[in-house]
């Protein structure tokens, strides 16, 4: 997470006044004034999410609706920019995906939900203007591209999120991981998905901006719920092994290098019924076939010293291996954790490397991700 330096005045989310009232420490992030933490602090907010339920304001993220007379036309159009199975996505189902460039690099990552009448995209705050331009340029003649600027986005995350939210509308209990639907909450018409960025069960709630504060207050009034800021959001997602765009994935990393190949279904890969047809498909299919020279790994520190973004990684002889793309002391795992890109011959679970922190080598071991187990409420297959 990094603040974006900008001379322009910071934008505010519909919950700005509530953040101040709750005592949040506000920081610039992607052009917005956002709460990095509340008085409880990042560690307490992190624990709140792992043990009960935490409420995050993620209204800075972009919500974009793609619509056509036949929503399948919007899905077909999106498949020309994103290697997902948008056409095969049933109403009420959600997928993770990304925009790619001609070299197969990642332009932004996103969540996609098929709704009755349209496709809902949620994209990163820093990329939303560029994403909108990209969609309009390439798809504008095939479907409508509508930013939902009049809607806020709240994330309620944690093992007790379901119980807290069900008190506002018992119907939400029917949703399972990566499913979405329309629900009324605190008198507001909302679109919910059961998903998030913490590794926990939870919901993301798209709510009309003018009803967002009342809904947030109704959620915070539940005994399980407390507010959490971007600081905890970052430690939670890192423990969950989830990539942060601009750090762990960029325009110069491909989905295969990033270990995100699972998000590209067979139908869009070489030999599939709708193979390719998106920017960089040849490069990405080539990497699926032959592998990549380096790939994203998770690292666990064997000492207590936190290892942070930008830190150099070396082998036992001091030879350069790569750099850390995200790192912190994992509050739940209780050890330094990091993500980095390593050459394939080092990117093996159990392999030991050294992080150079203030001139000292700190041993780290390539570990499986997620660092903290995902606890999603999945619908059983079949």
């Amino acid at each position, binding site marked *: 997470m990094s603040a974006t330096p900008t001379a322009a005045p910071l934008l505010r989310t519909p919950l700005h006044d509530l953040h101040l009232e709750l005592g949040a420490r506000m920081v610039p992030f992607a052009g917005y004034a956002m709460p*990095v933490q509340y008085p409880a*602090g990042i*560690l307490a907010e992190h624990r709140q999410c792992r043990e009960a339920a935490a409420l995050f304001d993620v209204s800075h993220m972009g919500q974009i609706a793609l619509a056509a007379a036949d929503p399948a036309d919007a899905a077909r159009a999106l498949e020309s920019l994103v290697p997902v199975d948008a056409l095969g996505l049933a109403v009420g189902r959600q997928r993770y995906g990304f925009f790619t460039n001609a070299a197969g690099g990642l332009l932004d990552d996103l969540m996609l939900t098929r709704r009755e009448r349209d496709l809902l995209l949620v994209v990163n705050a820093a990329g939303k203007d560029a994403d909108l331009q990209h969609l309009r340029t390439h798809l504008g003649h095939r479907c409508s591209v509508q930013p939902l600027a009049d809607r806020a986005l709240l994330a309620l995350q944690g093992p007790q999120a379901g119980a807290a939210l069900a008190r506002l509308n018992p119907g939400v209990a029917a949703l399972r991981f990566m499913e979405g639907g329309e629900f009324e909450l605190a008198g507001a018409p909302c679109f919910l998905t059961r998903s998030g960025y913490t590794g926990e069960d939870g919901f993301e709630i798209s709510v009309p901006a003018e009803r967002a504060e009342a809904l947030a207050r109704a959620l915070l009034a539940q005994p399980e719920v407390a507010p959490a800021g971007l*600081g905890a959001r970052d430690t939670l997602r890192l423990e969950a092994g989830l990539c942060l765009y601009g750090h762990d994935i960029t325009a110069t990393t491909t989905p295969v290098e990033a270990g995100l190949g699972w998000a590209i279904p067979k139908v869009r890969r070489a030999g599939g019924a709708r193979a390719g047809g998106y920017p960089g498909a040849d490069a990405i299919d080539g990497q699926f076939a032959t592998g990549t020279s380096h790939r994203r790994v998770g690292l666990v520190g064997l000492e207590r010293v*936190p290892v942070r973004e930008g830190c150099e990684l070396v082998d036992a002889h001091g030879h350069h291996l790569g750099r850390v793309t995200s790192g912190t*002391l994992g509050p739940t795992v209780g050890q330094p954790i990091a993500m980095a890109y390593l050459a394939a011959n080092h990117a093996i679970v159990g392999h030991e490397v050294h992080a150079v922190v*203030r001139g000292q080598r700190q041993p780290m071991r390539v570990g499986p991700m997620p660092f903290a187990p995902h606890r999603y409420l999945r619908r059983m297959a079949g």
Partner: protein
Amino acid sequence: MTIKYTPEHEWIDLTDPSAAVVGITVHAQDALGDVVFVDLPAVGTRFAKGDVAGVVESVKAAADLYMPVSGEVVEVNETLRADPSLANSDPLASGWFFKVKPADAAELDGLLDATGYDALLKSL
């Protein structure tokens, strides 16, 4: 009790002139957030005023700890090393970092007193 401050938000308690106690201020720990790691100097190391003598790391950031005065480290707080959260919960007492034997009494005049440090905080 004589406590002085640096513009870098360290405090130094000069009650014992042969073992002055050094820590970070309430403002410093608040700005850092939850402290999760401290790197302390080795006992016996000599530093000049302004040298980096340690590191304090929160969930979000790492910050250097500067020597308020020139001198030799005579003791470090092993309790803090084991429980870095003391830097947040008790920064002016049990959350101390190390003790130093000042080498040059004249340097002490360059430090801020409580009034001067309060004025500095108000100007931030």
